[in-house]
């Protein structure tokens, strides 16, 4: 027999003369892997062994380690089948194609009877990072620039798609070659199309076109808000002509308009196009990991070629919910499942393995159960995720409230955790140093890494909704929130710098600092959207003095607003200029205030063309910059 080799993080060992695989201890905050500590190398006679592979969705993200897809699958198989099954979980968050193929190959040491693959959402984010204007290696940026110069953004998207297809096919072929005749069940991933939206600036080089795009966008969004679906659709289709399908924002408007008009099939197509166009843009701006059409095509083709059974989740989900466009019923956020979503997906796998009807299995197998405290934490985690990853689209408030209310209704004690989270964020300290975090760690509602403890941002979007919902649900606790904020972050007589990522109202405006660290290395706030907002934490007893140092192209109006009230219209120009602004106390709220700079859609700064910069190997912002803020300090009068 050959010497055993590691499988992913599981190292070969022997215990009582028997070979086993053991993983390193789970850190206090959890990690990316399943919680199972050891795996016996040898199968128990009569028990069929399933090895389960996938990404965060498969790992039961936000539920794990308390509940995972693998455990649900094992329970369902054992409930439905005549013979016993065991499911060994190799899914992990941040899984890539290459490492999945390696893990599958190594797992053959366990002599599995069945392989299950559930991936695809990560491909758009993790498989083509070199096709990014922010990739650290200048050589990668140069080749990006060369493609861009040749054929513009559509060429870059095509190159990314090409690379992704090649990579995916190669990795799946490696899996096919290693597993031989073993049955491989493949899930075709579905994503939250109804509720999760992209809001991305278009990548347009021409200033006139950009201005036209933003003007049309404002009009379409206004019409949508007023339920004027026809007008919105007309304008959105004009937007499409301007951006040539490279901007997901446009497709979202089209989809929303069609949905209002009762055309759900057309809406579905538009939403799918939104995800597809985002699959490249997410590399350089505000995307989420979501599987697109391409992913499903590659998986379908590989299944056909290798005669692997295919589990068509989009079809199952649509039929189960009776809705063409699936949403929050099955998804916690952009792609991670609710309990019902996990049940549905795994029941379909169970049915396929046992050659049963999926509907019979879905109806027969018991719904997975978890303690209410854990489910409440999951919903709070979903809210955190939504606040961090969903841009400022009309449905954000709705979705945040949905998650927070579910948390409250599942287990009311989660309210204390919400306040602890607010406190940990407000201190500005690493959460690990706060008493609030320590308290949470010892209680029944322990937040883990996946719930966003390690986050260097005030998180005002989340805090605002928590404060609003607790007003009804727990008024005494709700009263504490403005005081906590004022205690830690409240203005005093010393100026406080608000032009810092910490105070940015929209966390996504920092790009994806976790992924592309180098994008964070600027000293000023660059504003890639016509509005830039900051959290201003102050009492209502005194006026607030602001000092703004900013620039934009000269000759266009800029409006400074607090809670929607215009407080100044400073005249900015290409050079840095300093402006003093007084905010009268009558427009202030006790605690949270929203300070917004509204740039003119025509005020875009002239910067060196991105393709030229990229060809030199420099980073480039592909999106227009409306203005830059060097400093925005605030203090009480």
């Amino acid at each position, binding site marked *: 027999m050959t010497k055993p080799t590691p499988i992913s993080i599981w190292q070969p060992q022997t215990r009582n003369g028997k070979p086993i695989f053991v993983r390193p201890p789970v*850190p*206090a*905050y959890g*990690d*990316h892997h399943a919680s199972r500590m050891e795996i016996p190398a040898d199968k128990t006679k009569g028990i069929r062994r399933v090895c389960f592979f996938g*990404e*965060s969705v498969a790992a039961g*993200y936000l539920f794990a380690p308390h509940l995972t897809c693998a455990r649900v699958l094992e329970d369902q198989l054992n409930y439905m089948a005549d013979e016993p099954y065991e499911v060994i979980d190799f899914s992990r*968050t*941040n899984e890539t194609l290459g490492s999945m193929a390696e893990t599958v190959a190594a797992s053959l040491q366990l002599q599995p009877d069945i392989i299950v693959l559930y991936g695809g959402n*990560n491909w758009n*984010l*993790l498989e083509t*990072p070199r096709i990014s204007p922010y*990739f*650290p*290696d200048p050589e990668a940026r140069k080749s990006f620039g060369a493609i861009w110069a040749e054929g513009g953004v559509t060429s870059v998207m095509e190159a990314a798609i090409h690379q992704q297809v090649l990579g995916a096919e190669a990795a799946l072929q490696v899996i096919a070659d290693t597993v031989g005749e073993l049955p491989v069940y493949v899930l075709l991933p579905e994503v939250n199309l109804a509720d999760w939206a992209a809001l991305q600036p278009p990548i347009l080089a021409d200033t006139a076109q950009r201005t036209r795009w933003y003007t049309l966008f404002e009009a379409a969004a206004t019409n949508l808000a007023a339920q004027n679906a026809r007008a919105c659709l007309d304008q959105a289709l004009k937007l499409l002509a301007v951006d040539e399908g490279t901007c997901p924002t446009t497709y979202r408007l089209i989809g929303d308009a069609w949905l209002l008009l009762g055309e759900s099939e057309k809406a579905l197509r538009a939403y799918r196009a939104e995800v597809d166009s985002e699959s490249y843009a997410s590399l350089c701006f505000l995307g*989420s*990991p979501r599987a697109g059409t391409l992913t499903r095509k590659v998986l379908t083709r590989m299944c056909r070629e290798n005669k692997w059974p295919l589990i068509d989740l989009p079809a199952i989900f649509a039929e189960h919910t009776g809705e063409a466009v699936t949403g929050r019923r099955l998804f916690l956020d952009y792609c991670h499942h609710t309990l019902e979503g996990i049940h549905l997906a795994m029941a379909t796998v169970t049915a396929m393995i046992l050659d049963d009807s999926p509907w019979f299995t879905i109806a027969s197998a018991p719904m997975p159960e978890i303690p209410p405290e854990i489910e409440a934490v999951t919903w709070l985690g979903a809210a955190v995720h939504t606040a*961090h990853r969903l841009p400022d689209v009309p449905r954000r408030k709705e979705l945040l409230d949905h998650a927070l209310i579910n948390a409250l209704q599942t287990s009311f004690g989660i309210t204390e955790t919400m306040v602890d989270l607010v*406190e*940990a964020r407000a*201190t500005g*300290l*690493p959460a*690990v*140093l*706060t*008493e*609030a*975090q*320590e308290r949470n*760690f010892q209680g029944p509602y322990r937040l883990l*890494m*996946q719930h966003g*403890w*390690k986050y260097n941002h005030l998180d005002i979007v989340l805090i605002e909704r928590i404060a609003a919902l607790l007003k009804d649900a727990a008024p005494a606790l709700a009263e504490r929130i403005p005081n906590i904020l004022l205690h*830690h972050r409240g203005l005093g007589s010393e100026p406080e*710098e608000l032009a810092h990522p910490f105070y940015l109202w929209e966390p996504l405006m920092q790009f994806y600092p*976790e*992924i*592309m*660290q*180098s994008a964070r*290395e*600027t*000293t*000023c706030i660059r504003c890639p959207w016509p509005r830039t907002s900051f959290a201003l934490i102050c009492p209502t007893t005194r006026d607030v003095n602001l*000092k703004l*140092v900013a620039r934009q192209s000269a000759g266009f109006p800029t409006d400074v607003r607090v809670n929607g009230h215009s407080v100044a219209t400073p005249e900015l120009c*290409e*050079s*840095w200029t*300093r402006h003093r602004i007084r905010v009268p106390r009558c427009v202030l709220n006790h605690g949270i205030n929203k300070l917004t700079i509204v740039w003119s859609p025509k005020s875009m700064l002239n910067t060196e063309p991105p393709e030229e910069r990229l060809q*030199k*190997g*420099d980073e480039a912002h592909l999106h227009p910059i409306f203005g*830059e803020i*060097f*400093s925005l300090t605030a203090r009480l009068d």
Partner: protein
Amino acid sequence: MVCIVGLSAFYHDASCCLMVDGNLVAAAQEERFTRVKNDPRTPVNAFRYCLEEAGLDITDIDCLAYYESPGLKTERQRHAAGVADDDSSFDPQRPVRAIREKLGWRGPVRTYEHHRSHAASAYFFSGFQDAALLTVDGVGEWATTSYGYGGGSEIDLFAEVRFPHSLGLLYAAVTAFLGFKVNSGEYKVMGLAPYGDPKYTARIRRLVENKDAGDYHLNMEYFDYVRGDRMYSDALIELLGCPPREPESEILPVHTHIAASMQQVLEEILLQKANWLAEKTGAGNLCMAGGVALNCVANGRIRRETPFRELFIQPAAGDAGACLGAAALAHIDITGKRHSETALDAVYLGPAWSGDRIEHLLVPTGIPAHDFRNREADLIAFVAERLVKQQTVGWFHGRMEFGPRALGARSILANPLDPNIRDRLNKVVKKRESFRPFAPSVLLDHAGEHFQLEQASPFMLETCRVRSALKLPGITHINGSARPQTVTAPQNPRYAALIAAFQARTGCPLLVNTSFNVRGEPIVCSPADALLCMANSELDLLVLEDFVIERHMLPAHLEALLEVWLPADGGLSGGKSAVSEHLYTFV
């Protein structure tokens, strides 16, 4: 108002300083803010800090002064890489372009040659009216060693040694051979040297031929600068007759002998160059800067064995400190005058946190710290008692130091009379190699009783002999030397008072002083850094200005949870992986 920002960046140790009307208002290294050791990136955080410290913003700045000449540097880089003179992988515009973009600066950027910036960082901060100038480092543009003379507001660099001949690169190659990191591990070689015998001196001399006057030549057969993973050729391995030491592996006697030989040859050459410079300039004062000027053993010999009566070494002698020189040169260009006639007497140029701000930070941690506000004498007594009881103390007080040394603002302090202190500090606090000695902070008035030291040494830049009646194993190197910092009340009153209180209890007017960090991490900057460092080490006590935290006061699970918060190795800028394992992730 004349407001000048000096900058060093893009090689290692990026930093920024601010000079307002000739006053050095603030200076800091970028690594302290980003927590990435030797961070070379545009110092965006240090830049912001400097302006905030002065209450200024970007509209107040007159000019940026950059510490080297990108055009000349590119020329040398292309030459060294063996590519064409117009090869686009080296772009002379990139540094200034990056400065403009990352800092948002749109006004004038003045650039000064690397060694000129080093020389200015020493001379214009020395208080001397005339001095000989010696700058020695790895390499800047072309120069690797420069000789000059400073008089009034003029600097004349009249001779230089050019790349590839470089004492800094020679020392770096041996550093790499001995398994330490180039650009930061050189001082480990210096620390290792006294453990060995200079048996390899003859062989090291084959690497470098010292010549008359200011010149010397490296024998390039033994070097290979272009190889990314090391700086020497196979010929060096053959010459030294032993395999290169693997990083982190055991240190063998042969390694100590090589270190001793390298150090001896360096000292010989530097002494001859300094003597030649004294003769050539006739100056009584010498100013030094450049990374090699951080070799405090060589510095001590230069003071003792050359005709120079006064010596001023820029405390931030490495590239970080060159931003000071660039700012000083720009000040002269703009105003026609030297920015200062007096010597830099302290380097507390970084951020500070008041007692009240620290209280504000401590409340949400739930740590029941002892509050000594308005009771400084009690604080001093409390900490002194703990030091007497051989506890290790993290000492956070006042503005952070600029430069590589902790000088009583961000220091770990310990009892030098404790016979086990070196091992204990090395193992449980610093987590580093055990051979390296610690430095003492000694009250200036008592320095002569314990050290053979004729002058003040406020910046810990020279070694001298220990001649104390006390047994001081913690700070005495194997060869009987030490690297003291002399402390006076005017420079750092609270620190001086602490040492005096320790002396009152023990008769010993000195403390062990080492930088406040664990291995591989930059020195702490903020109170949060200090708390995390305490949790990540086994420090007994943390003094945050007026607040004292004992180990048992830390949150119960902090240590277990900490691993998630500490930065993953290598960061993301290495280009290997786009996503880190230790971050909050979502896919």
